[in-house]
């Protein structure tokens, strides 16, 4: 059977490739990585309309074939058929921003010169028109020598015409792929030619980007801009708490109902205990935080889709420069608030290797969503749910402070790294600021769905296995009937915690915390499931104790300084296995991940100690 032809979407950053990819493929897409690198590979399927189906790949945006960062290298290598794990595309769909024609045409000319079959998608013609630009696609097609289709990906306009043009331009299935020509090096010549073609294609033009200019005057104001950014971040973190209350309660009720159903259906014994105390208490206590994680991702996706994210990088460049980084590092670092793994992957857009390495090493200090379950549990248990002046919730304020602590820690570590082990280079900040756009709900929902699937897969695999293993370690061996030792303390996990406890006791950590920290190395949120599972086993058979929530139990067993020290530990806590693995892949070895784990352990221990000793001295 003939294989499906491969179509590559290629173009400058901010040309609307991803929106076009989503519009063409819908939910029929697979997100993964190219083998050997952490550059995201987005592959989808496209029904061509003549019975054929094509594979379509969304290549990372780049300005030329002269690659300057790892993701740009992938684009170049795919186009030349040199990328391991990807065949050479049969057709290039060159996506142009209609409002930036002269600039985007230069790269388009480079791509057309490769000699592969091409179709141009003249995208975002609505925004160009909004900015007073009227274009002639027919004349553009005549000058470029390839079909040009006007599209508005986010409104699904021009897609049928584009699909028809792709069908016509695709070579016959049995035609062998021709090698691509060498890249054109006459950049000044390409620039002149691009300007000439753009001028001919423009029918009418008025001053550009009035809306964008008006918004930028406010959000990029030297004084107002940072205040707006700070306010936005504050609103995000407040929303993470306040919007999630109802869905969290619903998930909790669903798990409680499931637990009751199992207890009513199955006879008491090993399997029932494993399912209720292990799987439901453990996995359930993590899944319950899905709403908060999705709210955080929702805001990040919205900031990206509206075009504000690059503005935030612009505003932060000065501050980042003082830490030896560039504003470009802000985007991976902000993504790391959701999860350090995509954050570290996003560093591939940073061209300077030392800038990039520093960003990777401090990315774990951004408060990832896996810490949210831990923070939420402890804040809910120990911080009163009071409203302060101005309607600000105290719990939200504490959560915000923890995020700020992570950021301050990251800045300090970055400065030290730049003075020491990652000395030299860096500080390069060059970015296009895209037009503001109204985000498309469908694209945001696709993004949220992909993240929810990753989280649930994680909960169903690594967290599930760790929780079950932990339940076994916590449940066996059982103490003799006349033993005064509690089942948890008598268990294998309890004995491991006994070894750790003396090391952790000076910073206020008890046996229960020592026990929770072991599986938290696999994934941070497992600390909560570990506490929940231990609590479920401890209270098994004691109906009064079982009726108390985990938060209530912790409040009765931990002092406030211990709880605060536990929070401080998790601000800096060493990374989960996935982050360590991605750091190893991204830095091509074990040296930097080991360094990262080592310095984070020291930081976490020292910070927790300082918080515990200070809080104890203050009589809290």
């Amino acid at each position, binding site marked *: 059977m003939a294989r499906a032809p491969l179509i590559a979407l290629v173009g400058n950053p901010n040309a609307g490739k991803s929106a076009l990819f989503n519009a063409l493929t819908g939910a029929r897409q697979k997100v993964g990585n190219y083998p050997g690198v952490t550059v995201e590979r987005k592959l989808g399927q496209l029904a061509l309309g003549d019975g054929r189906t094509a594979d379509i790949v969304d290549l990372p945006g780049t300005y030329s074939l002269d690659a300057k960062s790892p993701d740009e290298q992938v684009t170049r290598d795919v186009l030349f058929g040199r990328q391991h794990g990807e065949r050479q595309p049969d057709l290039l769909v060159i996506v142009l921003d209609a409002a930036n024609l*002269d*600039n985007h045409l230069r790269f388009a000319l480079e791509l057309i010169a490769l000699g592969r079959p091409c179709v141009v998608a003249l995208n975002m013609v609505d925004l160009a028109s909004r900015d007073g630009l009227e274009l002639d696609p027919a004349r553009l097609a005549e000058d470029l020598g390839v079909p040009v289709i006007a599209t508005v990906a986010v409104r699904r306009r021009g897609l049928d015409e584009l699909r028809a043009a792709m069908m016509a331009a695709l070579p016959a299935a049995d035609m062998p792929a021709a090698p691509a020509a060498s890249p054109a090096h006459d950049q000044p010549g390409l620039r002149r030619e691009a300007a000439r073609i753009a001028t001919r294609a423009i029918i009418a033009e008025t001053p550009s980007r009035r809306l964008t200019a008006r918004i930028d005057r406010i959000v990029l104001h030297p004084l107002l801009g940072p205040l707006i950014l700070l306010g936005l971040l504050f609103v995000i973190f407040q929303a993470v708490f306040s919007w999630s209350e109802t869905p969290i309660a619903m998930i909790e009720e669903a798990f409680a109902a499931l637990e009751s159903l199992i207890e009513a259906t199955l006879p008491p014994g090993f399997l029932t205990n494993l399912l209720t105390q292990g799987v439901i208490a453990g996995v359930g206590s993590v899944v319950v935080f899905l709403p908060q994680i999705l709210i955080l991702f929702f805001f990040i996706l919205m900031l990206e889709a509206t075009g504000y994210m690059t503005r935030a990088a612009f505003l932060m460049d000065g501050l980042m420069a003082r830490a030896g980084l560039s504003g470009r590092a802000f985007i991976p670092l902000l993504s790391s608030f959701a999860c350090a793994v995509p954050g570290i992957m996003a560093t591939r857009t940073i061209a300077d290797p030392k800038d990039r390495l520093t960003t990777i090493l401090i990315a774990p200090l951004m408060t990832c969503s896996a810490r949210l379950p831990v923070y939420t549990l402890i804040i809910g248990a120990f911080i009163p749910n009071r409203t302060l002046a101005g309607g600000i919730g105290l719990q939200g304020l504490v959560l915000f402070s923890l995020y700020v602590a992570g950021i301050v820690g990251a800045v300090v570590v970055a400065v030290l790294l730049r003075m020491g082990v990652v000395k030299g280079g860096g500080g390069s900040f060059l*970015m296009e600021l895209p037009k503001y756009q109204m985000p498309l709900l469908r694209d945001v929902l696709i993004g949220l769905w992909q993240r929810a699937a990753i989280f649930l897969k994680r909960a169903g695999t690594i967290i599930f296995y760790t929780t079950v293993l932990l339940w076994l370690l916590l449940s066996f061996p059982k103490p003799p009937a006349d033993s005064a030792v509690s089942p948890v303390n008598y268990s294998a996990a309890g004995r491991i915690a006994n070894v750790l406890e003396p090391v952790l006791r000076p910073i206020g950590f008890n046996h229960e915390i020592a026990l929770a920290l072991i599986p938290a190395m696999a994934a941070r949120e497992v600390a909560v499931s570990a506490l929940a599972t231990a609590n479920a086993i401890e209270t098994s058979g004691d109906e009064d104790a079982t009726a108390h929530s985990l938060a209530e139990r912790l409040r009765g067993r931990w002092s406030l300084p211990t709880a605060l020290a536990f929070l401080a530990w998790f601000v800096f806590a060493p990374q989960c296995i996935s982050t360590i693995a991605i750091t190893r892949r991204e830095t091509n070895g074990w040296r930097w991940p080991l360094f990262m784990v080592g310095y984070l352990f020291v930081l976490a221990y020292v910070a927790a100690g300082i918080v515990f000793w200070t809080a104890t001295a203050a009589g809290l």
Partner: protein
Amino acid sequence: MSAADGARLRELGLDEGASIELLHRAGWLKPGAHACRVGRMIVAMSAAHAAAISVRTDHPAGDAAAPI
């Protein structure tokens, strides 16, 4: 400025003879990043990059080349 940054600036349209307009400057005490209009595009760059670019104003009195 590195050669790669110079090449990227040219790819963004900041080349000899290009018309640019300074739109925004971040930072309170020390100058932060700059945002310039190049053609119909807005390009953001660090203060260090901006300082490395010579511009000539189109004001009648602004003949001399000066950094942004």
